[in-house]
């Protein structure tokens, strides 16, 4: 046995959580790696302490004045195999865990049992779904697949799992306990204990359009695949859908039946928000080729005919619908900005009965189109190949305020980030500056790069990022719930004051500029030392869930006060 192997064996043997397997709850916000540590093994970080004094192992005392931060990793005190969860009735709540055997195992399987509450309350085992993390496009774009049949594991191999508990809509409040048991050859090797607190609150859809671009599914003769996909999006908290590719437009015929069927399926799936109908952007790009450009009579008359046919179909179904008329015209430089301006004005003048938006990706394009659109939908913007935008970024407070004051348009985001923060706390902060919706790229793009799920017929395997989008929307639900309670309560109540303080501290802690969070921005939320982050709760629940728990506690307290 070489030296490295010996060290590894000592590490495994010395763990307090099992001699044969490593099994522990991880932070589901992290993409799985073999280096992952247990969730409870997070360093406690103190931001900008005045002074840190350390007594070293050999007895020396070192004092450091005003460090940027100080992180302390302690001896593990909690149970690394315990998943502590809290959720409202009807909510989906996940956790993730890692399994690594010290020796080869045969016929490994993992099964969840029922969750038992007080007084015989039960959440059936079927509501706890364990799925394996499998390769797809890497990182957050790896997928969760059903476990299928038992499998073999070689020694020291690592597998990652994602477990989602669906709390029934009629679940009794209170604490529930259960297990996810790991077996090999039918013999138990260990278990993750689930401790779930079902909260006495109900969450509702946030009052925003939140959706994904979506292509018409192939070979969907009876509409069952469409229905399954829409149901899945709805279960992931989406309030709208943004159909984009492969949908029929009545350019070479008058057939709008496919749009009609989509609208009916959309209603049936229970989407409360605006349908974001994107195919019209192709009328400008390609679909009206042969009719001249947007300044010619033939093109304009054909465009009006096609748009009015689709609008007529939309009217029959009573679904509020936005028609997206342009696609990132900044990519075409100043020429694109001029096309954008002409197109938006023409549609505003000749088709005012249609609510319009455009998918935009540059400052000048947005400012040219926005005066003539109902909704301006944009990403963080880029310069354009000819640098006409002079480095202006758009997902920030300054631009939102300028846009609204100069044009009166309603802002939405497009391709402004998938995952938890962009759909959750950051979106909520931007809603303070008038943002009403967010459309993200892409549900399933023929399973290619960029897809948030992998589909095969009506079967859907979500990516990690897709699951995190749902958590972001759940964060938004908690935030909106607390805000609505505050709005209706007596401002003199101490619970209201506390809630206001909490919301303010959270809002103040979120940067007003997405550029600081994305890419090399490097900022994270909640950042180290954020005032409302209790290090103990962070270790039990993770950073964002610790903050969500603060919100949940405030909601429970305020509802109790309102009942008095």
């Amino acid at each position, binding site marked *: 046995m070489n030296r490295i192997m010996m060290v590894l064996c000592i590490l495994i043997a010395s763990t307090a959580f099992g001699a044969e397997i490593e099994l522990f709850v991880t932070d589901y916000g992290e993409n799985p790696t073999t280096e992952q540590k247990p969730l409870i093994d997070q360093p406690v970080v103190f931001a900008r302490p005045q002074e840190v004094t350390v007594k070293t192992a050999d007895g020396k005392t070192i004092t450091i004045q005003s460090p940027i931060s100080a992180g302390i990793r302690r001896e593990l005190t909690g149970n690394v195999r315990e998943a502590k969860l809290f959720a409202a009735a009807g909510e989906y709540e996940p956790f993730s865990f890692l399994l690594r055997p010290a020796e080869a195992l045969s016929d490994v399987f993992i099964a969840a049992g029922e969750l038992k509450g007080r007084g015989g309350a039960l959440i059936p085992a079927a509501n706890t779904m364990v799925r394996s993390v499998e390769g797809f496009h890497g990182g957050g774009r790896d997928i969760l697949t059903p476990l299928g049949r038992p499998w073999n594991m070689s020694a020291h191999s690592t597998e990652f799992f994602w477990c989602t508990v669906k709390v029934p809509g009629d679940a009794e409040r209170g604490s529930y306990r259960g297990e996810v048991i790991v077996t090999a050859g039918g013999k138990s090797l260990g278990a993750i204990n689930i401790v779930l607190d079902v909260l006495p609150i109900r969450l509702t859809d946030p009052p925003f359009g939140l959706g994904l671009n979506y292509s018409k599914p192939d070979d969907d003769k009876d509409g069952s695949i469409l229905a399954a996909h829409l149901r899945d999006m709805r279960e992931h908290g989406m309030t709208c859908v943004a159909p984009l590719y492969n949908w029929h437009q009545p350019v070479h015929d008058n057939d709008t039946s496919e749009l009609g069927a989509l609208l009916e399926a959309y209603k049936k799936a229970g989407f409360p928000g605006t349908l974001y109908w994107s195919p019209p952007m192709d009328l400008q790009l390609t679909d009206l080729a042969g009719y001249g450009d947007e300044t010619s009579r033939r093109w304009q008359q054909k465009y009006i005919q096609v748009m009015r046919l689709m609008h007529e179909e939309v009217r029959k179904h009573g679904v509020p619908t936005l028609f997206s008329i342009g696609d990132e015209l900044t990519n075409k430089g100043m*020429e694109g900005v001029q096309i954008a301006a002409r197109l938006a004005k023409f549609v505003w003048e000749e088709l005012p*009965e249609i609510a319009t938006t455009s998918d935009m990706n540059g400052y000048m394009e947005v400012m040219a189109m926005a005066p003539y659109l109902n909704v301006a939908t944009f990403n963080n913007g880029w310069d354009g190949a000819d640098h006409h935008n002079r480095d202006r970024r758009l997902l920030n407070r300054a631009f939102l305020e300028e846009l609204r004051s100069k044009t009166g348009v309603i802002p939405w985001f497009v391709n402004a980030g998938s995952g938890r923060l962009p759909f959750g706390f950051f979106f909520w902060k931007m809603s303070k500056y008038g943002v009403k919706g967010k459309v993200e790229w892409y549900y399933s793009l023929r399973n290619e790069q960029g897809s948030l799920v992998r589909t095969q017929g009506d079967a859907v395997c979500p990516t990690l990022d897709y699951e995190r989008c749902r958590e972001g929307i759940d964060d938004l639900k908690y935030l909106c719930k607390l805000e609505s309670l505050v709005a209706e309560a007596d401002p003199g109540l101490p619970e209201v004051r506390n809630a206001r303080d909490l919301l303010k501290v959270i809002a103040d802690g979120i940067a007003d500029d997405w550029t600081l969070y994305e890419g090399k921005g490097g900022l994270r939320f909640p950042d180290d030392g954020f005032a409302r982050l209790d290090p103990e709760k962070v270790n039990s629940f993770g950073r964002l869930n610790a903050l969500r728990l603060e919100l949940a506690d405030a909601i429970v307290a305020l509802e109790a006060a309102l009942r008095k």
Partner: protein
Amino acid sequence: MRVKCTASLVLLGLLTLGAAFAGAQKEGDKAALATKLWPPARVQEAVKAVEEQRRSGLLSDKSYEKKMAMLKARLSGTYVSESLSVMDPPLNFIQNGGFEKVNRNSDKNRSRWLWWGGWSWGGDYENLWEDRPPFVHSGQFSARIRCTGVTGRIGINTPPLPAIPGATGYKLTFWAKGEGDNLLFVNFEEGAGGVLREKIGDAWKQYTVTGKPVEAKKTYQVYFYSVGAGTIWLDDVELVPVGGKLDE
């Protein structure tokens, strides 16, 4: 001298009168088109739709006021659309046939031009907008397709173009110039058939290919492939139907 001056003044006067007449004609055409597009019932329906947009949270108060003012002006017959066009450019189903509108945010083995698609089926090629005057037939740019290594096939294509009821053919003309051991392959696809496969010489020359419509097809496309070595420049592509009635 005086006679020349008088003649010039008369000519100028006639030109001014002609321009004024054309302008008035255009305004008259626009008013007639607007009347056709905007019967009072449509304006009333649009007013209801705009009110619904506001109720649904899809229109700010400021935008609502602006749209309603426009619709009220339409009702009173005083609104003049600034966008509505009564002019058509000369008929040419190829848009950006002169390759003047380039897309700088594009890959070398894809289309670099607005309204054109592009794809590579293997081989080493690059597409680029060409601005050296000897290699431009007219305007500022031509399209350059250059083989940089192994031969294969690269192509640029039109989007699906509308079939014209009653047309007996689609006449495609273009100017091309070549260099090296090139081979151009022009092909009507999907709803029409017609082929040209030719080595392109080193002087600008106009080529013609006629596509024959395939019955019952609503659209067709035209592809320009480079399948040889060397370089091909294309410019001033035009496509017009032979016979038939345009969709108005």
